[in-house]
């Protein structure tokens, strides 16, 4: 017998909670996203393709995705190291550092944007150092990269930390009793256990970076085809009242987001099946 849509239950509040949930979800999230998809549908796949298939748009999408990928990869490596150090080691200031990891989450993007620019511009503390060796950071793709690293930093660390905390010491000890060196143990026993969480964090960091606007827009330089990110392109189209074009690019970005979301869910399903947990 097929499971009913909703099990009858003496719990109160079904009508009210379901009503509020579905109404607000529709109003705030589903209808607006639906409007975007509808706009794209009315534009037609041919129209969307025609808009997206211009050099400037491709360049922006490609730039956003490529730099986000590099930033997320950096955060993958650094995030795992960070999580390991925060969970396993004891040193003065550890608590402070742990709290600092959340800063990119808590700091508004515009604030991050202008301060990163101030830091890495040729007049800034780091920028002037780099300038001396001829390395321009702000207003180049390097600047965008650093901003994207900043916003994605907490994702991997925060998803991996709980997993490290739950590693049974006995498993590490078992590996040692079987003759494995510490490095071998880290590579073959510990790292695989962290991989699903690390990959989830990676995908989250990637998704965040691709859509990032505020932290990047100041440091980017915004030169079309060189340092122009996709979200900026949408805004430019809107300012010129090219709603169709804006919708087309928006849908392209939405598809990337959905693909990443799907990837995350698949990772979690796969990992649950394989090792019984995420």
């Amino acid at each position, binding site marked *: 017998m097929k499971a009913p849509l909703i099990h009858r239950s003496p719990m109160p509040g079904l009508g009210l909670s379901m009503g509020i949930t579905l109404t607000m979800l529709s109003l705030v999230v589903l209808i607006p996203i639906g409007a975007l998809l509808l706009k794209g549908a009315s534009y037609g796949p041919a129209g969307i393709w025609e808009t997206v298939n211009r050099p400037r748009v491709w360049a922006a999408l490609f730039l956003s995705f490529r730099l986000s990928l590099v930033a997320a990869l950096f955060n993958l490596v650094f995030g795992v190291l960070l999580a390991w150090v925060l969970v396993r080691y004891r040193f003065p200031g550890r608590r402070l550092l742990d709290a600092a990891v959340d800063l990119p989450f808590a700091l508004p993007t515009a604030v991050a944007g202008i301060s990163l620019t101030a830091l890495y511009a040729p007049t800034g503390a780091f920028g002037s150092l780099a300038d001396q060796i001829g390395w321009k950071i702000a207003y180049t793709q390097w600047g965008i990269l650093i901003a994207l690293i900043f916003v994605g930093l907490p994702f991997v660390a925060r998803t991996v930390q709980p997993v490290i905390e739950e590693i049974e010491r*006995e498993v590490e*000890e078992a*590996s040692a*009793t079987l003759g*494995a060196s510490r490095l071998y143990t880290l590579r*073959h026993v510990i790292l695989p256990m962290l991989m699903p969480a690390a990959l989830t964090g990676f995908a989250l960091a990637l998704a965040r970076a691709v859509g990032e606007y505020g932290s990047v827009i100041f440091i980017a330089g915004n030169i079309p085809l060189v340092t122009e990110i996709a979200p900026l392109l949408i805004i430019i189209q809107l300012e010129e009242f090219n709603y169709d074009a804006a919708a087309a690019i928006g849908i392209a970005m939405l598809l990337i987001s959905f693909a990443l979301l799907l990837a995350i869910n698949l990772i979690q399903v796969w990992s649950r099946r394989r*090792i019984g947990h995420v």
Partner: protein
Amino acid sequence: MHIEIDAISKSFGATAALHPVSLAIPSGALVALLGPSGSGKTTLLRILGGLEYPTSGRVLFDGQDATGLTVQQRRAGFVFQSYALFRHMTVFDNIAYGLNARPRGTRPPKAEVARRVTNLLDLIQLPDIGSRYPSQLSGGQRQRVALARALAIEPRMLLLDEPFGALDAKVRKELRQGLRDIHDTTGLTTIFVTHDQDEAMELADLVVVMSGSQSGGRIEQIGKPQDIRARPASAFVRDFIAA
């Protein structure tokens, strides 16, 4: 391998876990460390395996001071209470782990590793589960895999921490016999920790009864099961065995 424990003691900070104990274990014996929780038996086992460092005293393997040997160097097959199988590896890879972890020079070729793993799977009477994952096994099966994994490295001794603890009575009985068989087949010096006196008495050649106290765990009596039953050395032993 003949093991000698020479005045080993262990303190964790201010807490005394083990009062200085001394013990001689003949080669090839099946020994039970029997006692209630807090008697220091697991601590003693872990010291033998190199997972803890004694506060004082020495451990001798075949007459040689082994106290300074690292865990990796000891080649003590250790079966943990929770089995500690590698969840992300198949049973085959778990058992093969110790062999694959050896440095390139001493690592056996893949065919040899496969042969040994197959033999061990036969020994633990689970020939078909090589490609399964630990999460797909029952408790009893996991215990046997943990045993096979420890045996794969050709250890000098076998150390088991409450090997039958989390299993139901019927499975326990089967595994007890299994451990006895494996011990007789391999001839390894085997030491297991338990709080179950039936288990200790039934399985072991030599029983070491331990008790806990403020100044750490201590050995109450060492002897063959029938001797301990007939002549308990103290009130504690008498009460513990009778319980």
